[in-house]
């Protein structure tokens, strides 16, 4: 059994993150489009708050990826993001503290032409003030499949 398969169903990581305004401002620069990332737009469109909102697509990245890759014995050179799915129930704003728990939902291999590809399915749950704020499922493809050895 590979190390990855032995960890299926288990909690891989738990981390506390503070959403920083500077992080969201960098995102605005990366997209070069104020839209809903900018403070001005937040002021005019969000009636109840005046702080920056974290967009949905980035929620999965709040997890502690380096720790997770280490725990699963994955080499970052072989990793490709295959699928991302986010359910977002509470808006996360700059200044919020979020606790994210990540679980290994599945790990399997498939043969693609002559090379195996491993797939890691991670499930993450984000909590804000002890309530579920979001749920994220991420599928990572591992080129060359999983390394065999003692788990």
């Amino acid at each position, binding site marked *: 059994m590979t190390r990855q398969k032995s960890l299926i169903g288990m909690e891989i990581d738990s981390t506390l993150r503070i959403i920083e305004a500077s992080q969201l401002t960098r995102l605005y620069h990366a997209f070069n489009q104020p839209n*809903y990332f900018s403070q001005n737009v937040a002021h005019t469109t969000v009636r109840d708050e005046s702080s920056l909102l974290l967009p949905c697509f980035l929620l999965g990245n709040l997890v502690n990826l380096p720790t997770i890759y280490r725990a699963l014995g994955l080499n970052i050179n072989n990793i490709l993001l295959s699928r991302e799915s986010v359910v977002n129930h509470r808006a996360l704003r700059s200044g919020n503290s979020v606790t994210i728990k990540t679980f290994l939902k599945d790990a399997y291999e498939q043969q693609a032409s002559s090379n195996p590809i491993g797939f890691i399915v991670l499930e993450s749950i984000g909590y804000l003030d002890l309530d*579920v704020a979001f749920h994220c499922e991420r599928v990572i493809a591992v080129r060359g499949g999983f390394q065999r050895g003692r788990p």
Partner: protein
Amino acid sequence: MKRYWDHMEVGDSLPKIVRPPISRLQIAQFAAASDEFSPLNLDDEHAKNAGYHSIYAPGLMSLGFVEEALKAFASNMKIVSLKGTFQRLIWPGDTLLAKGLIVRRYQKHDEHRILFSLWCENQNNDVVMKGAAIGLMFKDVEHENRSNLSSPSISQKSHEDLIHRCTQTISQASNKTSEKSHAKELV
């Protein structure tokens, strides 16, 4: 622009959003913003040694572009679900075009929902990302004025469904952990 559920129809398209060619600077800024510093996205030498012809952009950027298209379509819509499958790598210099259309308009737990099909193409019309999103909308202007919120809120029932799903994952994990420690004790 504000939009309302009553005026939505299946087949309505999102405004097409074309981004300028993706630059290396933009990829670095995105890495800093998303806190994901993969050398494959930042270091050419490293990417070449790993078998790629240069660095490539994180796939999440394409998901960000379609989320931007959704927000441009209806600023008062709440995106409750967003998913994407990344089908091709995005290279520096690629021009991305975010597209989408409404495939279902329905009500669930007193929420007014819209299901979108979304995709992102590069300059060669290759689909680099295929996805979907569910948005909550106000039924009409009156509904919005009554709620006094910037976007509709999630119903208690929907939230309970999500909590139930999360609780199942956590209880499976704790069972697995106790099974493992029990097995260790036996050894």
